[in-house]
């Protein structure tokens, strides 16, 4: 690892990185706009300039060179000596900041970016906040450049990050710098808007308030938001995200750097895939079938209501009686002679949705097997849409639109015994092999197709644990409202077997219990469900769960 000297301090840094990156990683606050570690280096903003020691041609001695150098374009090399704390460097920063403010409107009070804007920050730290220019500022209209994005042209500092992102990462090249010199603007060719599946990233990239997200526009001031470390359920790759939220709910999702998966970016599916959490039709109360209708029930009744019929089905000794009955008070009446018996398939099934966390899937599987050692464990419906899409720099959007198929599979494999794919389960259900089933959903979109509903309707005692009403409502004996992933904690195992934890952002909706907590209670465990504690018990049996991957944090002053 090369050692370089910055402002008299020797620091050790990764080789092959620019001095600017090394300085940021060492915790220094070096202003910069155009440099982004994920994009090509253009050295156009001139904010990151530094002084550098070079051999003086006259004396041959190492001396401070008379001109400044862009630290973003100077690779580190052993023994390099540079300084940022010097008058020429400070003066350059002041001049450049004053230049940036020449035409920039001072409209921070109505700008979404205020509070996380690097023009604000750098002006406060380095530059004069007032301008000596008395002439009129250039005033440009806003541009509607895409379905999600507005461009406030007059706030742009022309760092060209957004343009490079579209060229290098998305590979779609919708954005361009048009015009020349002080007339430069960012634009699209009219009629060819910014609408690639990664478009949302340009808003995060923009160091000022020029590119803004239409969905977030004028909704919140950023200093009123808190951020939770989460993992996106949008696809099976496990993109890591920040959920920005407050007591009013979620307001936006931003990428959380992840050197192994999504780096600095996320797909639009991950970014905008949280709206269902606040859908008004979410299930908010457990309900049980009484007569024909589902009637509200209390959470406290559920363990008793569920355990008894399940245990009864499992025991499966007595002959069949007619189904139904008041308040499910006679569990044995639900029993029939399981037709699957003798073929190794228990009459009880637990469908583990790939939307569940590993811990939840584990608890539910354990629960099913504790009630019936021959219970069939089923990997729930795995939504797939289209094909995997890979972008020029390797960013991939998976066709599999769920976060934890691999985690559930790992658990099923480990537990062994009767297991089934969702298709096999449906086929067996149609044949009437199951007397009782616990089905988990949790998908953001409607997933119960007619064949699914028809097959599940054949199960006499059907428990549906899901987010939204569906065609299963008519067949369910018990309906349990699920919590969205933002309201739970746990781990997802991505398609490559990487186990990533995420934290809870919001409390579960009023009237709803977090899935893990509920399974915990069903299992008769005392106290609160803690994902980590459960994971530790899992790890004792299954080494795959002993280590989680947590991406490293970005340097504080980097952006």
């Amino acid at each position: 690892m090369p050692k370089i000297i910055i402002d008299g301090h020797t620091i050790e840094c990764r080789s092959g990185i620019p001095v600017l990156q090394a300085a940021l990683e060492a915790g220094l606050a070096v202003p910069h706009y155009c440099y982004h570690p994920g994009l090509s280096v253009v050295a156009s903003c001139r904010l990151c300039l530094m002084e550098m020691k070079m051999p003086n041609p006259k004396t041959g001695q190492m001396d401070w060179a008379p001109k400044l150098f862009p630290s973003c374009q100077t690779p580190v090399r052993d023994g390099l000596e540079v300084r940022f704390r010097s008058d020429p460097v400070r003066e350059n920063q002041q001049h450049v900041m004053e230049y940036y403010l020449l035409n920039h409107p001072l409209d921070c009070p109505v700008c979404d970016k205020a509070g996380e804007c690097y023009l604000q920050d750098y002006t406060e730290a380095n530059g004069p906040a007032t301008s000596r220019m008395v002439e009129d500022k250039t005033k440009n209209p806003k541009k509607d450049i895409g379905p999600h994005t507005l461009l406030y042209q007059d706030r742009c500092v022309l760092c060209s990050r957004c343009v490079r992102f579209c060229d290098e990462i998305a590979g779609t090249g919708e954005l361009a710098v048009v015009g020349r010199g002080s007339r430069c603007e960012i634009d699209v060719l009219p009629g060819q808007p910014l609408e690639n599946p990664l478009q949302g990233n340009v808003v995060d990239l923009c160091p000022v308030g020029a590119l803004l997200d239409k969905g977030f526009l004028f909704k919140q001031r950023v200093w009123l938001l808190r951020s939770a470390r989460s993992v996106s359920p949008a696809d099976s790759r496990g993109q890591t995200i920040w959920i920005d939220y407050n007591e009013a709910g979620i307001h936006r999702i931003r990428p959380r750097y992840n050197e192994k998966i999504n780096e600095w970016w996320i797909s639009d599916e991950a970014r905008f895939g949280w709206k269902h959490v606040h859908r008004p039709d979410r299930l908010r109360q457990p309900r049980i079938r009484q007569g024909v209708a589902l009637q509200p029930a209390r959470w406290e009744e559920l363990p008793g209501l569920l355990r008894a019929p399940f245990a009864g089905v499992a025991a499966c000794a007595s002959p069949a009686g007619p189904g139904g009955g008041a308040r499910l008070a006679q569990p044995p009446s639900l029993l029939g002679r399981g037709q699957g018996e003798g073929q190794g398939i228990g009459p009880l099934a637990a469908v583990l949705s790939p939307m569940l966390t590993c811990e939840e899937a584990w608890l539910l599987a354990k629960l099913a097997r504790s009630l019936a050692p021959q219970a069939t464990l089923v990997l729930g419906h795995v939504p797939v849409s289209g094909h995997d899409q890979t972008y020029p720099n390797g960013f991939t959007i998976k066709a599999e639109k769920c976060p934890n198929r691999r985690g559930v599979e790992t658990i099923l494999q480990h537990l062994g015994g009767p297991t089934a794919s969702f298709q096999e389960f449906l086929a067996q259900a149609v044949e009437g092999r199951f007397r009782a089933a616990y089905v988990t959903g949790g998908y953001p979109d409607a997933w119960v197709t007619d064949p699914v509903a028809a097959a599940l309707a054949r199960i006499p005692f059907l428990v549906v644990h899901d987010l939204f009403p569906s065609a299963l409502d008519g067949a369910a004996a018990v309906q349990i409202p699920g919590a969205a992933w933002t309201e739970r904690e746990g781990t997802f195992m991505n398609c490559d077997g990487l186990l990533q934890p995420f934290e809870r952002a919001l409390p579960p909706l009023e009237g709803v219990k977090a899935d893990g907590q509920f399974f915990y209670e069903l299992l008769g465990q005392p106290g609160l469900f803690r994902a980590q504690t459960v994971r530790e018990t899992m790890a004792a049996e299954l080494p795959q769960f002993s280590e989680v991957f947590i991406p490293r944090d970005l340097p504080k002053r980097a952006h």
Partner: protein
Amino acid sequence: MSWRTIDRRTAAEQDLGPGLNDAVKEKIRSFFPRYPTKRAVLLPALHIAQDALGYISLRAMRELAELLELPPSAVLDVVTFYTHFWTHSRGRKTIVLCRSLTCELMGGGRVREGLEQRLGIGEHETTPDGQWSYMTEECLAACEHAPCLLINEKLHKGVQAEDLDRILVDPENDHLDMPRSTLFDAPAETKP
């Protein structure tokens, strides 16, 4: 002006303007072997397109992008970098007036006022009869003859406001120094 929003997502059919015909496209293709990449053909292609259409229409930009396998915005980027390329239709004759220091010192400002008064148009506008368009340019590289202006390809030197009447009807205005290069054709007669 951020209270105003302009729509860049859609482009109406009538705003796309004329497209390139097959002969023009073929001409552009004939340049491919001369350059290491198709992208590198963009500049000659723009000259050819502007010679054919009088300007680079949105439709032409799209077609060029397709021809050269570039994102359309990359064509827009280059077109707008050079003031030589027009992005809207022009009159029959284009006047390019120098606005740089030497010409300004030698009375270029008065020439500009005179011109705008006579034609009744501003920069990048076209007279209603479709005869004249005009623009200013940073330096025509003829500072020794300041103030100066170009009409099409004819350079008028040492122009004073009083000379405008004479200059505008100068038959030399239509003169082209051909062949400018064996690679290019003469610009087509442009119709507004």
